[in-house]
């Protein structure tokens, strides 16, 4: 009984994929699409999950992973199947706004070169803007939290300029900057700078005053207190700001590309929409989702590495 339950959990994705394959091949299409790529993809996935299910009987770790995610994967496969039926097979949703998964896959296969180039452009812009924003945000937040006089000039800027969504500046920036690229870098940097500054400042201000008192009795000068006490002490809060910054950087990136920059995912989305090729638009959305979650998990990895001392005390 136990093994039957276990085996059915391991094989559920394979069964769902095989059902998909049968319906995909046997049921007549009502919309135009190149079905061949999709058949290949589903066959490939079936093969992968079958191998996984078999090897799970030998490797405990793989077995646990698959049994845990099996239900989720199966449901996703079946939902995709239902979506394919109501689009490609039955034509119940209007085109071109709701293309079938088969058509979206076609966009990846036929347009991969342009998509890849778009991702590269977007990443270049994102990374450059993000790093500049962070490099400016952490020092300005530190100074703001540490020197009261600094706040005299800095606070108005942070309070007034900061909360304006960076995207609101796009019309001005595109005129003021020599290239749309440099303008976009500036905008992304701005959108990262604000949350990082505010959170760094708050992290420093909320740090237990005793840390600084103890440091002073140990012979720490101001520089040491700033760089070796305030900065690492505020690091957990700084990371909160960096996560917020990543979100706003991403929003700014896509918006900037849609409005001015002549490359990148935002531009691709706009361009695809202009040609009413919505299936390409969905393909680009899929990639940008992947890119965004990729960046987020990368930042989580960096945080876990740097804040290793927090292990077991804080979870978020």
């Amino acid at each position, binding site marked *: 009984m136990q093994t039957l339950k276990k085996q059915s959990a391991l094989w559920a994705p394979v069964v769902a994929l095989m059902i998909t394959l049968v319906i995909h091949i046997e049921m007549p299409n009502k919309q135009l699409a190149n079905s061949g790529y999709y058949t290949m993809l589903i066959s490939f996935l079936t093969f992968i999950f079958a191998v996984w299910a078999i090897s799970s009987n030998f490797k405990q770790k793989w077995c646990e992973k698959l049994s845990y995610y099996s239900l989720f994967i199966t449901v996703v496969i079946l939902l995709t199947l239902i979506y394919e039926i109501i689009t490609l097979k039955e034509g119940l949703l209007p085109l071109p706004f709701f293309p079938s998964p088969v058509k979206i896959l076609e966009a990846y296969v036929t347009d991969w070169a342009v998509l890849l180039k778009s991702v590269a452009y977007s990443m270049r812009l994102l990374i450059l803007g993000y790093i500049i924003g962070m490099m400016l945000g952490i020092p300005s937040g530190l100074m703001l939290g540490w020197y009261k006089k600094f706040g005299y000039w800095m606070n108005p800027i942070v309070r007034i300029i900061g909360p304006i969504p960076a995207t609101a500046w796009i019309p001005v920036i595109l005129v003021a900057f020599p290239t749309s690229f440099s303008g976009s870098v500036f905008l992304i940097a701005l959108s990262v700078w604000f949350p990082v500054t505010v959170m760094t400042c708050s992290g420093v201000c909320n740090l*237990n005053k005793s840390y600084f*008192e*103890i440091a002073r*009795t140990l*012979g720490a000068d101001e520089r040491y207190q700033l760089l*070796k006490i305030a900065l690492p002490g505020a690091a957990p809060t700084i990371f909160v700001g960096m996560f917020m910054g990543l979100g706003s950087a991403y929003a700014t990136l896509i918006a900037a590309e849609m409005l001015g920059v002549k490359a990148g995912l935002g531009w691709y989305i706009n361009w695809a929409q202009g040609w009413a090729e919505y299936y390409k638009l969905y393909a680009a959305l899929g990639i940008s989702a992947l890119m965004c979650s990729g960046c987020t998990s990368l930042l989580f990895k960096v945080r876990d590495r740097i804040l290793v001392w927090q292990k077991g005390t804080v979870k978020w």
Partner: protein
Amino acid sequence: MVKVKQESNLNGQISIRNVSKKFMDAKNTEVKALHNVNLEIKAGELVAIIGPSGCGKSTFLRLISGIDNPTAGELYIDDERITGPHFTRGFAFQNPTLFPWKDVWHNVATGLEARGILKDHSADVDEYIELVGLTQFKNAFPHQLSGGMAQRVALARALVNHPKALLLDEPLGALDALTRMSMQDEILRIWNEQQMTLLFVTHDIDEAIYLGDRVVIMSANPGQIQRVIDIDIPKPRRRNDDIFFHYKKIMLDALGVNID
């Protein structure tokens, strides 16, 4: 065994002359935390400060450390005026306030690192971690330590600078009774080995008698020294000696507690 360092040899004499400290409370009324306090502390002496809460005993210690400055009066250590914190005056709070982002080794190393001499003296760090018996835990982070262990790290962190004077603000206040007694012995042992002046604030009369060469009894509103009692019992002391109770009675009387 830790060698006695030349620099900490036989100095650490502290003079407190006509010191007052006022500050404003939340309602903006003036509070006299300390009023005209005078005290001479000999080099290498172990002095306990005891008194009701609000008598300014913590303020007193903070003034000696230099974290706070007096409103009036002067403080000297070895005839040098105290104007701010200095690494020759080590300090530890009731709450160990270890830096949570540093492991035990780096917490203890803080003083040497801040003074830019860690590279040449990193052996001292290991030495003091050994002195407080935490060699096994030198790579542990503060949240992994028990209260007593954390307090020992705080002690080692203050000691690594070879302070002339060690100032402890209720260092054992947060510990349970048993840990507390063993930590008292540990403090005595360290004080013996390091030959420095040691001042500590406490709530605990037994602790004051057990450790102190002298006990300073303070009173509140305004914070003043009420009485200084010499504890004339040879060390090591026994907590259940008759003479121990004799001093306890004197102190309770001085603190206004009636036991009869």
